[in-house]
């Protein structure tokens, strides 16, 4: 059987003028408009890298220092621009190192195409050197994946992969290419003739159900718009703003929805959920109509499902039918693109009095006044919340921010009001430490004139800080703000609150000197240890032309409040220490 497969290998038989699989791949990528690839070479992708070198005037390859970094960079690139991010890695460990990024993109609906090398076809299944079942490993965390069996299939596969990555609810697609396929010469049909019968456009929401939804919204006494990443992905920001304004509807974004509605707008209640504002969570708890737009009722938003929005009818609009009814059964479901739905609402909007929701707003203002976001200041320690406020002030609220996961992420969500979509790039669903720096680099590359700041913790930073070398190599002048508390802060907070202060394995105070580390990589290091030096140090670092690491030594045991404990209902919110 194995011998038979070896004979089938077409490498030596086809005429030399026919294109190789690698050539077909590169042509197909160029045809998709790809000009940027993040990657890391290895044995199984040598043919592709050889071809990529010849195509270097059309496609710029960014050589990372770890494959996880490549995927996060592609995600940052995709989320900053809405374009499909592209990754190229080798077989085996190259592919497994990419899995975290792929899973992250899957959870956060980020369009990326990851091309992985594979051992030659005749070695598949033999435990060959650097062999791993990449399509098997990635199957649960991709929209689709392919093991390419014939080089002639490549153009069609690439085309469908890009289509799948960006259509409907976006997400990652993996193309696994055996080494002999990238070497094989063969004829292939022109790309124009490639068709893909499998994918259908999402259905349009009927005007009847849109009308019914709007009726419910117009008749609600205590409506709340609960908005998520779908608003950003569908480009619905302007439609949402017009709609919310014309009816004076309160808006609360999820972490992924931040920037989908201006945080500083008077209609915005701030983020909801585990670390959301008191007003947002109370409004949802008392609401009689929750209008869920491009969201998936994540457990970090809902807490205990049985008591989530207990008085509310739910209208759920989402492009992914599987999101509807997964966690919360809506009273009205609109499966479709959220921008289309909002535009339908806008086209049928009647004249309505501004004052109608005034009693509801009065109640909301009461909650806002009773429990605003707050923290206690300090004379001798830098408070992490102050750092984010200062960052907001120094950047006029205009920086693009990327974060990891944890306390620093929540403080960014709370204290940096985002005013435009795609301004925050964070690891929401998967909660990936180490996401921030490479994601910031991908965004910086896409938007060279934009000030891009990676806000990270000292834990997460050490998971991907090798990418400083990449940032320096390609002159991607990101600023890395390390909120350094010597702890895995969010885990420590849970241990303090729910495990009797048993700080089990969260002390990471033995760490490199981040200023020296920055300098070792050829970046510039800054440090602020005292409240009085914070502003000047941050200002100097943000002004620095190149890559800058700002080591901000913050209060060690600060907690993120408010907090709804996991699985509790919103009324059990802990508002301060």
């Amino acid at each position, binding site marked *: 059987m194995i011998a038979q497969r070896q004979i089938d290998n077409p490498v030596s038989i086809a005429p030399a003028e026919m294109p190789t699989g690698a050539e077909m791949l590169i042509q197909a990528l160029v045809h998709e408009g790809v000009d940027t690839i993040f990657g890391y070479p290895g044995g199984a992708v040598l043919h592709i890298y050889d071809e990529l070198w010849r195509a270097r005037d059309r496609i710029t390859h960014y050589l990372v220092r770890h494959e996880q970094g490549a995927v996060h960079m592609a995600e940052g690139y995709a989320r900053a621009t809405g374009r499909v991010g592209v990754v190229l890695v080798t077989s085996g460990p190259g592919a497994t190192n990419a899995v975290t990024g792929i899973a992250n993109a899957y959870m956060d609906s980020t369009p990326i195409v990851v091309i992985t090398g594979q051992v030659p076809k005749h070695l598949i299944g033999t435990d060959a050197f650097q062999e791993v079942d990449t*399509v*098997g490993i990635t*199957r*649960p965390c991709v*929209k*689709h994946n392919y*093991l390419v*069996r014939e080089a002639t299939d490549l153009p069609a596969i690439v085309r469908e992969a890009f289509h*799948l990555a960006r259509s409907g609810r976006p997400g990652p697609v993996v193309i696994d290419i055996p080494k002999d396929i990238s070497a094989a010469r063969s004829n292939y049909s022109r790309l124009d003739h490639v068709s893909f019968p*499998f*994918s259908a456009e999402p259905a349009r929401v009927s005007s009847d159900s849109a009308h019914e939804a709007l009726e419910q919204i117009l008749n609600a006494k205590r409506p709340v718009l609960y908005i998520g990443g779908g608003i950003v992905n569908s480009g619905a920001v302007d439609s949402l703003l017009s709609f919310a304004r014309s009816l004076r509807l309160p808006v609360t974004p999820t972490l992924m929805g931040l920037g989908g509605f201006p945080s500083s707008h008077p209609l915005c209640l701030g983020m909801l959920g585990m670390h959301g504002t008191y007003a947002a969570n109370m409004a949802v708890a008392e609401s009689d109509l929750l209008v869920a737009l491009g969201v998936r009722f994540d457990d970090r938003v809902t807490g205990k499902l049985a008591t989530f929005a207990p008085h509310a009818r739910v209208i759920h609009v989402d492009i*992914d*039918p*599987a999101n*509807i*009814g*997964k966690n919360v*059964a809506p009273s009205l479901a609109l499966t479709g693109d959220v921008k289309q739905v909002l535009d339908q609402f806008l086209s049928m909007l009647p004249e309505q009095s501004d004052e109608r929701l005034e009693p509801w707003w009065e109640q909301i203002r009461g909650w806002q006044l009773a429990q605003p976001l707050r923290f206690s200041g300090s004379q001798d320690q830098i408070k992490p919340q102050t750092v984010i406020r200062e960052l907001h002030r120094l950047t006029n609220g205009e920086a693009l921010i990327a974060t990891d996961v944890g306390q620093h992420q929540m403080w960014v969500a709370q204290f940096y009001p985002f005013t435009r979509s795609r301004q925050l790039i964070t690891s929401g669903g998967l909660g990936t430490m180490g996401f921030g720096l490479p994601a910031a680099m991908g965004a910086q590359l896409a938007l060279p004139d934009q000030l891009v700041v990676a806000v990270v913790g000292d834990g997460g930073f050490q998971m991907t800080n090798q990418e400083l070398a990449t940032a320096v190599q390609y002159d991607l002048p990101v600023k890395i703000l390390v909120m350094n508390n010597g702890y895995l802060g969010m885990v420590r907070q849970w241990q303090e609150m729910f495990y009797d202060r048993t700080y089990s394995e969260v002390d990471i105070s033995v760490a490199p000197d981040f200023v020296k580390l920055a300098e070792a990589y050829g970046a510039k290091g800054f440090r602020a240890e005292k409240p009085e030096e914070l502003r000047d140090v941050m200002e100097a670092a943000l002004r620095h032309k190149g890559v800058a690491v700002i080591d901000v030594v913050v209060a060690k045991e600060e907690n993120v409040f408010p907090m709804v404990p996991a699985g509790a209902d919103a009324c059990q919110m802990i508002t301060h220490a």
Partner: protein
Amino acid sequence: MQDIQDSRRHTLSIIVADEPGELSRIVGLFSARGFNIETISVGESLDPRWSRVTIVTRGDERTIQQIVKQCERLARVREVQDVTTRPHIEREMALITVSATAGTERQEVLSLVSVFRAKVVDISHTQLIVEASGNKEKVDTFIELLRPIGVTDITRTGHIAINRLAARADANAA
């Protein structure tokens, strides 16, 4: 997520491209999302480029809806139907090895075979292999009745299902 109380058996008929790895995508989805599979059977459909996967699963309405939607998200799945919601015919086949020596034991097996419209497909001095088909309940009952005689092996195909023809609703009744 699965509510055991309202949990009912559903038969899903999934049309998926006949390509390597597609079946494991479906099976993997069931295990990853905590859905269970009671039986599964796969074969060619009318168009040989498409396979029909028949899965019997258990769950309340919401769980079944989730399963259907999650399966429909798969790029190579063309259609998912909950056959149970419409008049349909379900069949399963079983091959059962029974220890029965010549005489009353064998006679008893043969009379059960005749009652259940099963078939003897192999025979030796001490054993018979019988083939039975029907819905799950029929096959279950048949096996239960054979057990006291001495069942030594069972292999079952799992359910296949097809929608009934509207015009002659009982034409193929068992």
